[in-house]
Every structure is written in structure tokens, then in C-alpha cells.
């Protein structure tokens, strides 16, 4: 197998990249200045060698603990549990949350053979059992599996922490009521609130 085929083969294993795109990327790398490709290769190498899950919250980091866990200004009493590390980025961009995180590493998915023991649930339980945490916000996706995971967390965490909360479901801001599906509207109605 040629080097070109090998690289294209590796690239096509990435999510969202098919055989054609992989070849296009490979030829693009061939055409660009050498140094840039080498920089990319080094970045990949560093990523693979140095980045690992944070020992506390499982957010990827180069250190023992991630920057959020080390930041003394972040509230250690409030944890936000998310399915994947990428979800942290989404919440951080909103700039509203000042607590810390816990990355579950997925969701309960019996059809893929993923149970609670395959997630970082017991680690979260231990974190919360210390007593310093007053609230866990469960921010798993509002899918059937995300909801089941949230319920499971509530069951196992409730004995250890004062509040287990769930992020709200409903209409997206700037959305159009006309195009929302029935379940979303039903949720939005049942979670309605008094206007100030």
C-alpha cells in the first residue's frame, strides 16, 4: 500500500469523512508547504501522547487536572454532568455557568452494550460523596437515552447531594412555534412559568 493510500485510509476512519474527502484532504496536504504538514503531524503526536482525561472531571487535559478544575474562581459546590467533553465547550461559550464539570463519557445505551459501569458514574458518585458538592446539574441530551441516563444519575446521586437538577427542555430561543414538534411544545407547556 502506498503512503497516500495509507493516509487516506486513516483519514476516512474519522467521523464525517468518507473515502472521497479523505483522498481530497491527502492531496491537499501534499500540495501545501512541507512545514505545515509537519506542524499538523506534530500536533497529532502531541495530542496522542500528552492529552488524557482530567483525573477529577475527565475533561481532556495535558495536566493531571484540567484548567477548569484548577481554577479557584470556579464554584466547586456546583457540578454539571455532561455526556461528552465537547458539550463543555458548548456550555462554556454561553458563559453562564461558573461551576465545574463531570464528563460521563457517553450515555446509557443498552443496544450498544453501554451500561452505567461503562461511564464515569461511580467516579461522580465518589466526587459528590465527599460532601462539598451542593448541586449536580444533569445536562445530558434530551433524547430517550439521555433522559434515562439523567434519571439513573438522579437515583444514585440523590443520597449524597442536596440538589440534583435537570436542564430545562422546551422551545429554542429565536425559534418558531409553528415548526416545533409536538413533544417539544408539550414539554414547553408543562414547564411554563409565571411572568414576572
Amino acid at each position, binding site marked *: 500500500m502506498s503512503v497516500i493510500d495509507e493516509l487516506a485510509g486513516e483519514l476516512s476512519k474519522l467521523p464525517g469523512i468518507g473515502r472521497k474527502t479523505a483522498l481530497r484532504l491527502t492531496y491537499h496536504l501534499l500540495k501545501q508547504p512541507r512545514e505545515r504538514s509537519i506542524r499538523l503531524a506534530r500536533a497529532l503526536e502531541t495530542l496522542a501522547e500528552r492529552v488524557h482525561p482530567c483525573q477529577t472531571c475527565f475533561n481532556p487535559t495535558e495536566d493531571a487536572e484540567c484548567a477548569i478544575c484548577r481554577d479557584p474562581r470556579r464554584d466547586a459546590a456546583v457540578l454539571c454532568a455532561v455526556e461528552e467533553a465537547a458539550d463543555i465547550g458548548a456550555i462554556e461559550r454561553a458563559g453562564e455557568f461558573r461551576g465545574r464539570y463531570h464528563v460521563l463519557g457517553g450515555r*446509557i*445505551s*443498552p*443496544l450498544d*452494550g453501554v*451500561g*452505567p459501569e461503562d461511564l464515569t458514574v461511580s467516579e461522580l458518585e465518589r466526587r459528590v460523596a465527599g460532601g462539598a458538592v451542593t448541586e449536580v446539574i444533569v445536562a445530558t441530551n434530551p433524547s*430517550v*437515552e439521555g*433522559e*434515562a*441516563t439523567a*434519571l*439513573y444519575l438522579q*437515583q*444514585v446521586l440523590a443520597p449524597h447531594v442536596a440538589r440534583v437538577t435537570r436542564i430545562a427542555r422546551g422551545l429554542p430561543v429565536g425559534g418558531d412555534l409553528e415548526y416545533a*414538534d*409536538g*413533544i417539544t411544545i408539550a414539554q414547553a407547556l408543562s414547564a411554563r412559568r409565571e411572568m414576572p
Partner: protein
Amino acid sequence: MTLTLLTLAIRDFRNLARVDLAVPAAGLVLVGPNGHGKTNLLEAIHYLHVLRSVRGARDADLVRFGAEAFHVAAQAQGGAVDDVRIGFARAAKRKKVMLDGVEAERLADAFGALPSVMFSPRDVELVAGPPTERRRFVDIALATTSRRYLTALQRYRAALVRRNATLREVLRRGTSDGATRVAVWEPALAEAGATLWCARVRWSRWAAPRLGALCAAIGERERVTLEYHTSLAVDPAGEADETHVREQLAAALERDRGQDLRRSLTHSGPHRDDITLKLGGRALRSFGSAGQQRTSAIALRLLERETLCEQAGRAPLVLLDDPFAELDVDRARQILRMLGDGAPGQTFLVVPRGDDVPDAYTALSRHTIRDGVLDA
């Protein structure tokens, strides 16, 4: 309003390699020996309605032997869309649906876009077969006419297969928190299940007198009744309050959890309910004669057509797969008369021999089919 297909194009669907038809407004008759692809043509048209095989076949098995993909496309008027194209590629296992030239984001968007009702000899299973057949019947009628029902059905099925997989996993590995692991799927089941339950009960109440009248009109002398049969401790004859049903369903799931864990099966919920059909107070399924069962099955299809007309506001296409083969002449004539009453709808009739075409349809333009090839 009446839905009318203007053109129909089929590629590599079952034994139909290539079909290009301009369809007359009234419909058409297709004549051909058994096993040459008559029913396949109707199945392709019905695929435009429910995006799956009416005969329960897997998509991969619908691709013509030796081909990679199938396509079914139609131009229509009087439907929710004017142009539907569906393709399925065996290798990618992917279904692609284009509605008026735009790819549908979700398959649900295309569900029921070009509605049709298919009358076939297999329909007797609706009456004589297991409860699955009747649940499937009512699910399709309601899901193609209500987006809310379709969403609830998808959610319910998703939660059900996951709860059952969890039951098996817990039984296999004997985890200590088995009950909790199973319970986390129940709120979704109760919520979506209540939506299904209430919609089915409402439909059953709407359908019961109509079915009785249809059967009587076809020539059935004894009274045919229809009831929703449920294990839930809620009276289907009472007012269906979704919150109450949800609570009852959640309670039943909790109550049966121990039994469910032992047998790796979810015992309560709308997926176990049935539509009970009776003739003079006795179960049609076990006591009805072959002719009575056939008459009731045809009446159920007429009822499906009424449901589509009423809910979607347009008459669906009528697909007749040699449906009167085993009926006596009088009943067949009655049914044809009922199909013709009101808004008849565009009709696609397939029969084995030219002599089998009922008088009412002799005016329709006629095609023949042999080995999957239509005459020009």
C-alpha cells in the same frame, strides 16, 4: 380533495427493473399472471405512503436481484407535496427522500405525503391473525395522519427496545441495581404510551359504528363490533385523559417490573393491546367463517380510507390487489359500489386475467405485465 398520481417511475424495485408510467386521472388496470410483478407495482406505490414495504420486507430485500439500489418516484396533484422521490442503496443502507426537490431532513416529514390504501387477499390476517397485525394497522392509520402520534410511536418503540435490552442484560449479569436500571426507561414509555393509548381509544370509538355500518352494507347480517382491548386499568369507554393514563401506565410498569425482570419482557403497555372484533358477540378471529373474516378485513381497509380522508382531508389512492378473488359476486359488487361512492380516488387494480376485471373498472386504461416488464 382527491390525490392523483400523474407519473410513476420505478427502478430496480423487486422484479421491476424499469417502469415509467403516465397515470390517467381515473387510474389503471394491470393484468398479468401470478409471480410476474403485479403486486410489486402496488407495493412500490404504497411505499410512497409509509416508506416501507406493505408486506413487511426489509428495504435491502426490495432491491432487485443484482442491482445496488431502488428508486420510486411520483409526481402528483392534490397531495401535501407534488413530487416525491425515494431511493435506497443497499451498500450504504441509506434511504433518501426528496420532497419537491428538497431532501427531507427526517423521514417523518415524508411519511403519509402520498397516502394510499391497499386492499389485498392478505388482509384477512387483519382479522384472523395475531394482535400484531391489528396494532400495525391502527398505528399506520394514525401515524400517517398525525405527526404527534408518529413522534410518540417512535419514542415509545425506542424506549421499549432499550428497556427490554436492559432486562436481558440485568438477567444475564445479575447487577444489584437492576430495578433502577430498568426503571429509567419507564417515564418515556408512560408518556409516549399514554399518547398512543388515548389516540387509539379515540379512533376505536370513532371507528366502531362505522365498521358496523360498512359490514352491514357489504351484506353481513350479524352485527360487527370493534373495541379497544387493553390490560391497563383504565376504561376505554370513558373519557381518555392523557395524564391519568400516563400515571396508570407508569404504575403498571412499576408493578410488573419483577415479572418483567424474570422473563426479560415488558408485559404492560400499548404494545400488548389489541383491537377486538366481534360478530354477533363472538370473536371474529376464532368464530368467523372465511367469508365473514374477508368481508370484515375489507371493511377495515374501507375504514382506513375514511380515516385518511377525514384526518388528512384528501382521498387516498386505492390499490386493489385482486381483492375480490374469493368473494361471492354480490359482496364484490357491494364493495365496488362503496369504493365508487363519494370521492372514488384514483384506482390501481391488478388481476391475473383480463376476465377478472369487474364491470366498474373496464373503462380504465389497461396494461399487461410479464416478467416485471410493462407493455408500452
